[in-house]
């Protein structure tokens, strides 16, 4: 479903040597499976997700989605198929319903009130349509961010440490929610985390990065140890 073939990312900086953020990254995620991506800070986990959503361009290699090179897919259409939830929710000013409508509106599609209510119910926030985004707690905001990504009906969901900025209680709730949504919608998922225990709970396979390179790729036991 989703594959990276020798992907690299290097940035050129004025007056400084070029910086290699990712080097020769290859992996494959099957349809409906979740790949847990682990690594220390600065290992390149978020950079990898940015390439999969095409917020940045790979310097080399290919990313394939359902057998098609993503470089050949219109970037905006690709982002619609590959949803992303970031570490922080980054909700837009306005109401919760406006946030959820945002994605489809970019493609001239209007969501009905019933569709919004259904999505909010799915993320455990039934009746939140008219709430102002800035009044939500961290956990609620992250649930809205998930609903906002799901509104585009993606095939792939990229999760960039989606629970790391939350308190313990909200963390468990959001993790459970994400797992159920991924399973229910049969989404292909790449879940970045620095928490090994979380990686075991959420992934079927794992990828361990260090300094922009793949250190280990395989089953959870192979990568994280039995």
């Amino acid at each position, binding site marked *: 479903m989703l594959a990276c073939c020798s992907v690299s990312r290097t940035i050129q900086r004025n007056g400084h040597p070029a910086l290699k953020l990712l080097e020769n990254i290859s992996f494959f995620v099957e349809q409906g499976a979740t790949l847990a991506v682990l690594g220390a800070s600065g290992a390149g986990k978020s950079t990898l997700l940015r390439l999969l959503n095409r*917020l940045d*361009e790979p310097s080399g290699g290919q990313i394939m989605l359902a057998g098609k090179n993503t470089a050949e897919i219109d*970037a905006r259409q690709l982002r619609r198929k590959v949803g992303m939830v970031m570490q922080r929710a*980054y909700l837009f000013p306005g109401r919760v319903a406006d946030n959820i409508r945002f994605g489809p509106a*970019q493609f001239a599609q209007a969501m009905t009130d019933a569709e919004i209510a259904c999505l909010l119910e799915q993320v455990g926030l039934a009746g939140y349509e008219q709430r102002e985004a800035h009044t939500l707690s961290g956990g609620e905001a992250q649930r809205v961010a998930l609903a*906002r990504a799901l509104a585009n009906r993606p095939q792939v969901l990229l999760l960039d440490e989606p629970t790391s900025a939350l308190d313990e209680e909200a963390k468990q709730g959001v993790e459970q929610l994400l797992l159920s949504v991924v399973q229910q919608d049969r989404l292909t998922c790449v879940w970045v985390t620095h928490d090994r225990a979380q990686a075991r709970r959420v992934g079927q396979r794992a990828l361990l990065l260090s300094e922009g390179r793949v250190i280990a790729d395989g089953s959870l036991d192979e990568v994280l140890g039995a």
Partner: protein
Amino acid sequence: MVRSMRSWVLNYLVHSELARGIAQAATVAVFVLLTAWFAAQRGAASIGEIFVAVTRAIVQILVVGLLLVILMKTPWWTAIPVLAGMIVAAATIAAKRAPEVPRTFQITLICICAGAGTTILVMTALGIIDKQMRMLLPVGSMIIANTMNIAALYLNRFVGEIRSHIGELESAIALGAAGDTAALPYSRAAFRASLIPATDNLRSLGIVWIPGIMAGMVLSGSSPLYAALYQFVVLGMIFISGSITSITASQLLPRNIFNAREQLLIRDAVEEQ
């Protein structure tokens, strides 16, 4: 009346206009240096730096004065290359406000040409700016200088807004938004901020300050009523040219910080800081 407004001490000592000008400049320079010395005593400024700045200001303005003496004797159309040179210089200075944005000079040049160039051209064609060197050059330079400030304010605020809302901006892009749609709230904020000085100048005209052109016209013997009306005309032209500059910037700049794949081009520069 005008004569009585001049320093009676200097008037008593010097008689020619040039000698009076030199004496007035020298007197003010001495007071500037005295103030700088007091400031330096409190560690607020360096006396050397202020001495250099004062000397530089005198030399610069004298050179400009001499150039104006020559230019005032030339036909009106010689103002065109002079004003064009000023526009290029203004675009270069404004572009320095956002070196991380690709093709900033081209953008500021287009914005200032659209704002100042169009306003000067149309107003001269309508006869609001007299087709004479003594009007075209000072009024034109005032319009260009103000559009430069407005372009610089727009750039500065826009890049600042992008820097502080990069998460929201990229969240919108990640959901499939086009770059200019994602950047629209920050472009609007920059547009509003860039026009604050020009709007406030219009609002406070005559109440908080009596601007230079009006004072100059009154001093040179024009009717105060005509001087007041013309000051409004000048500030109105500054507002028009500034608005056109800011509108042009808000059309060009948001598009320019993204590539064809809607990827933010200034992100690496932002990350490095």
